[in-house]
């Protein structure tokens, strides 16, 4: 009996180690391309392109970052404006699409109406339209109403891009929140509105948080529409700015990597920060029927 116990304990420990090792390996694979970009932003092109390859960097410098913020002609690009545009557009469109997504998701999760499935599918399918098919007609429309190269135009486009997505996610999470909870609150004298904010919203918070992360990351990284709808530093976003490092014949690989790092850091910080809400939402409101 003792022996069997010990055997199974050893086996369990071995599996544990193996699985932890596997997890470590997987995380490395995920991180590798990112680390490689960081590394390349710090070393001269001659080393990036070296053959035979240089595995251990010989000289590291922040030249690319310094150059990025320098003036025109010294390798500078308007990174501050791009950053500002990206931030304004991504944050605003995320907030709006979360609000719209919450109202839409709630409607689908809590009300019965005719052709509900059809409506839902219809809304979702708007996302199926490839950006490349949408970009020109949208440009036509925007040109008519003067939304080209404006923050408002980009925000509107990204909101539309994210709504199907947020509705879906939030609907899914509202569905997991038992109906009787809100009903109980209403019996206790809450209005439907109060019941929503006090009972259902906190429970659906993880869903809203992850919908928010998704919406933000999509808006932050989108390229196809942005390249068509933005034109100058008034609204150009960071992904479009990446192309500033490509010319007709050349790519400044180091500069591009540096801008990529600048692009990734805020997304990383935000994701890390929102994790907390995701976690607390999940642990505080264990979802039970």
């Amino acid at each position, binding site marked *: 009996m003792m022996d069997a116990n010990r055997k199974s304990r050893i086996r369990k420990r071995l599996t544990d180690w193996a699985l932890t090792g596997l997890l470590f390996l997987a995380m490395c694979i995920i991180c590798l391309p990112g680390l490689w970009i960081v590394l390349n932003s710090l070393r001269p*092109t001659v080393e990036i392109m*070296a*053959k035979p390859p240089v595995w251990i960097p010989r000289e590291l410098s922040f030249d690319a970052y310094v150059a990025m913020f320098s003036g*025109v002609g010294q390798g500078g690009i308007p990174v501050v404006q791009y950053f500002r545009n990206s931030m304004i557009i991504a944050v605003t469109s995320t907030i709006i699409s979360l609000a719209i997504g919450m109202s839409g998701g709630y409607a689908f999760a809590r009300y019965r109406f005719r052709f509900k499935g059809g409506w839902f599918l219809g809304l979702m399918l708007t996302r199926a339209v490839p950006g490349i098919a949408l970009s020109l007609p949208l440009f036509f429309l925007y040109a008519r109403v003067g939304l080209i190269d404006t923050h408002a135009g980009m925000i509107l486009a990204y909101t539309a891009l994210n709504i199907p997505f947020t509705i879906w996610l939030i609907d899914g999470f509202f569905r997991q929140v038992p109906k009787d909870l809100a009903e109980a609150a209403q019996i206790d004298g809450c209005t439907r509105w109060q019941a929503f904010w006090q009972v259902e919203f906190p429970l659906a918070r993880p869903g809203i948080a992850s919908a928010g992360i998704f919406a933000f990351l999509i808006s932050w990284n989108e390229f196809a529409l942005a390249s068509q709808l933005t034109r100058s530093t008034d609204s150009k976003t960071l992904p479009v700015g990446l*192309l500033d490092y490509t010319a007709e014949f050349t790519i400044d690989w180091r500069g591009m990597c540096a801008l990529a790092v600048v692009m990734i850091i805020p997304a990383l910080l935000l994701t890390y920060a929102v994790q907390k809400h995701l976690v607390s939402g999940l642990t505080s409101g264990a979802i039970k029927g």
Partner: protein
Amino acid sequence: MKLMTSASAGALILAAATAGGASAQELPGSFEGVTIEAKLIGGQQYEALYNRLAEWEAATGATVDVISKKNHFELDKEIKSDIATGQLDWCVGSNHSSFAPQYPGIYVDLREYLPEEALADFVAGNMAAATLGDRLVMLPRAQFDVSAMYYQKDLYEDADNAAAFQEEYGYELAPPETWEQVADQAKFFADAPNFYGTQYAGKEEAIAGRFYEILVANGGEFLNEDGEPAFNSEAGIEALNWFVDLYEAEAVPAGVPNYLWDDLGQGFASGTVALNLDWPGWAGFFNDPEASKVAGNVGVAPPPVGSAGIRSGWSGFHGFSVTEDCAHPEAAASLVWFLTNEESQKLESAAGPLPSRNAVWDHVIAEAEGDAYRSEVLAAFQTAAETAFAVPQTPSWIEITNVLYPELQAAILGDKTPQEALDDAAEEATMVLEDAGEL
């Protein structure tokens, strides 16, 4: 040199003084309160010039509003969208000789707004390529592109190499004069996967353009007199065979069908390629020890000659145009002139790009005196520029290259014979031209 500058400045003053009537104006002129919207090509090598916008503003009292700054291909997309939606009331746009024929009628004839004297100093070949029909649609800036052959010098100085080469090919090893010699030497130097004889950009307009220039150098025509595709000729097969042959011999990297210009430049700078036909923009990069492993070991020769004794010289250049819908075409034309005048071209060419004005050519050559590498570069490119030619002036050029390059790739990769590939491409190109109403 000083004499020359002041001489041409004098000519300009003279021009301004003697010019009269509606067709000419004083340059840069005075346009108090006018705002000129401009779409400019962005990117490191182009932007130093834009610092001069403020000078023009100060001289004329006008304001320049840069409403778009993108790389070349994105700008092309944007201008096409503008044409489609009729949004052409911005005034000044960056243009390129290879793309200009695609924008029919949206740009004014600059001769109507600028005195003849102001246009006199430009290199004749550039002006010819900037003229569509009888309209001068753009003024070239100092961003003239034609290729020259970069090579690793020490390979040619090595006595063992020379003897072995002489033995194998029966002539002396020296930087290549002809396309055939390029092929011989590339195969001789190649040692895949560590070292390659040469390389070529294997997709999109890049390979179509290279094919076009070898075709012309071999005495072939891309489009015949009636405007029909004629590249599936014997000269065309010979040209395509050059690519196929090198690929099969592994004298070029196996990845070339997916290479574009940046891959070539980085490849040569990595020191793993012997010969590299490439653009003037790389000259400084290749010889910069910070960026390139072959720095100090770079030789430059004029582009090779084909079997018909014609020197290759596919060329193109950037310039500026003024839209038909522009509300202040005089002011816009003044800006275009200013950005391409002698001072502007000197500023741009100081960083390496080739000028498109005779006086500036003289200036950069004089400046390079004492710098052996720079002199060698300029001599090679000047030889190239003398016989350079632009792409066929059809609005469908880019579209034809899009049907041509997959066929060229198919032949290179052995999916089709060169004859089949070119016949198929010619058939598709005919369809393109028919659809466009050009045939």
